[in-house]
């Protein structure tokens, strides 16, 4: 009988339920969308953050931090140790090789310009955008254009395969009055080697130290300095997950983890575990996470997730209040019915049960529909903000349905107290 009442009340009073159901649908879809996105936002943001540059630095193990002031390296090259250029390809052979989005080697040598007072300029050799072979004959395109999309060139990028093209950093170009198309002759500053004639193909803006240097294909820097096949360092851009407790513990050294933690750490794409694996792959190198980048990725993601939680709670409260006021109206509208049930001998709790069950049903239906709508909404948001779809996590469905039912119940709880205060003698005789 109870179920019958519930069903009849629900289906014969459909219009009344429609408003409540749509309130829940709205809230549920919002919550679903936010949940779906916040699960994915870490990954998405992390990819996004890659456009802000590399997050790992690969340097020779014994090298001290380079002493660099105003873009000029005061650490003399002599006695310096190098990385082998050909070793760098091993980065793509580690466990997390798919997460290595790109790398760029660097070799910075002091150079002099012929003529015009023989100005001393640093010459930085790197990859601009170049196909690298690894693991047999797989290829992958990498270089500063891949990992530092914010590097901008007025003019053209040099060709990685040529040794007669350079970019002039914006500051340097300003100081020496260089422009695209100018011809220069550069010479190694530390030892008398063959001077090289080069063409400035463009002016480079990076916001960093490179603006005070000539930036050339790696091969030119190697040839001019005689460091064939050597590089000083490499910047690596890796897709990482935000830092958490485990990774922070690991920062104190991999030894501080027990074997279980170690396994979990090793198999998670933390910037530190990727650094660890890079060092395993290239024993002569030390991988240094650039913590500012790694950490700010984590905090930005955390803040976004916090924001989503706040919005979710707001949606929860707003729809709860909406349900609440709808419930008050419903109870007013149905006061005769309630009075009648009581007059027929229904206890208060029996009336409560009917109304709360109706609410729960509204929550269930609204939650299910809202889940569907929310999943679509999440895709839309994903496409418009990150330019890619968001993966849907099935766990969102039960969580959301439960939340929707809770909203509906919580919203109904307070107004249903009106039921107790409703005296059948008053409503049944039309007195109120």
């Amino acid at each position, binding site marked *: 009988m109870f179920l019958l009442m519930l069903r009849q009340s629900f289906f014969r009073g459909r219009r009344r339920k429609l408003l409540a159901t749509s309130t829940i649908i709205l809230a549920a879809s919002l919550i679903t969308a936010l949940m779906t996105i916040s699960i994915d936002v870490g990954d998405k943001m992390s990819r996004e953050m890659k456009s802000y540059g590399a997050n790992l630095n690969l340097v020779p193990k014994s090298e001290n931090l380079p002493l660099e002031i105003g873009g000029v390296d005061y650490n003399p090259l002599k006695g310096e140790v190098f990385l082998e250029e050909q070793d760098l390809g091993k980065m793509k052979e580690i466990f997390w090789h798919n997460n290595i989005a790109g790398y760029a080697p660097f070799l910075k040598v002091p150079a002099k310009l012929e003529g015009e007072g023989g100005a001393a300029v640093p010459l930085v050799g790197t990859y601009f955008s170049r196909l690298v072979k690894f693991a047999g004959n797989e290829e992958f395109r990498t270089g500063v254009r891949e990992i530092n999309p914010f590097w901008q060139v007025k003019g053209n990028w040099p060709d990685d395969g040529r040794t007669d093209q350079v970019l002039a950093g914006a500051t340097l170009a300003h100081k020496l009055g260089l422009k695209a198309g100018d011809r220069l002759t550069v010479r190694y500053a530390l030892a008398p080697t063959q001077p090289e004639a080069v063409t400035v193909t463009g002016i480079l803006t990076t916001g960093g130290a490179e603006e005070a240097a000539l930036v050339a294909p790696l091969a030119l820097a190697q040839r001019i300095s005689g460091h064939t096949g050597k590089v000083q360092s490499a910047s690596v851009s890796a897709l990482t997950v935000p830092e958490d407790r485990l990774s922070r513990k690991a920062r104190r050294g991999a030894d501080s983890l027990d074997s279980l933690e170690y396994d979990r750490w090793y198999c998670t794409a933390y910037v530190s575990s990727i650094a660890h694996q890079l060092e395993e792959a290239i024993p002569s190198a030390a991988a240094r996470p650039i913590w500012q980048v790694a950490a700010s990725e984590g905090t930005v993601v955390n803040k976004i997730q916090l924001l989503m939680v706040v919005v979710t709670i707001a949606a929860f409260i707003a729809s709860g209040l909406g349900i609440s006021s709808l419930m008050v109206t419903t109870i007013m509208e149905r006061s005769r019915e309630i*009075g009648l049930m009581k007059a027929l001998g*229904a206890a208060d709790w029996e009336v409560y049960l009917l109304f709360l069950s109706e609410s729960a049903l509204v929550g269930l239906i609204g939650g299910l529909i809202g889940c569907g709508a929310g999943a679509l909404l999440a895709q839309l948001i994903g496409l418009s903000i990150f330019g890619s779809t968001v993966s849907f996590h099935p766990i969102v469905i039960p969580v959301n349905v439960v939340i929707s039912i809770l909203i509906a119940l919580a919203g109904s709880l307070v107004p249903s107290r009106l039921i107790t205060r409703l005296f059948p003698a008053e409503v049944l*005789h039309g007195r109120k």
Partner: protein
Amino acid sequence: MQKIVLETVGLTKRFGNVTPLDGIDMQVREGEWVAIMGPSGSGKTTMLNILSCLDTLSEGKYILDGIDTSQVSEKERVVVRREKIGLVFQQFHLVPYLTALENVMLAQYYHGMIDRDDAIEVLNRVGLSHRYDHLPSQLSGGEQQRVCIARALINQPAIILADEPTGNLDESNEQIILDFFKELHAEGRTIVLVTHNPELAEFADRTVRLHHGKVVQHAA
């Protein structure tokens, strides 16, 4: 002498400084049909609300079927209401989204036992054999009131209390309802009926006249 089903002793009801009922002594015996009459505002509805345990009294005693209702808790009064009393109102109060049959079964449900056949039988008795599956909105006023009477009968209550059951009906429907009450009376049911209509009261065993909250006449 039949046993006393309903008895009030000095029953008084106050709303603030209004005293619609002022020291009513009344007895109803098993199988009796008592009509309560009186001018508007004399306290008839207030009286019936108390008799049907929908309201509490301020002073005095009200004993229904051996239970002193002024002594029991609100919860127990709910039980008394559903065990002992069949109620018919002036307005036809039916649950709008339940069919005629379901409305009758609802009373069975709160009473504790659902028996569909029983419910159908009672509806047949009130002449609604083709109307089980109609919603209240699809029934005429007279038909709705007959559903209400069927609902009041279904649980074999100790007493049937009706507040102007024909007040909203035309003459032909009034006659149908009146015939029912006669029939029920003939069966030996105990009935207390509030009415304005002297014709209705004529068929009662006796009439209690109220005036300003006092009994002014017990007529046979």
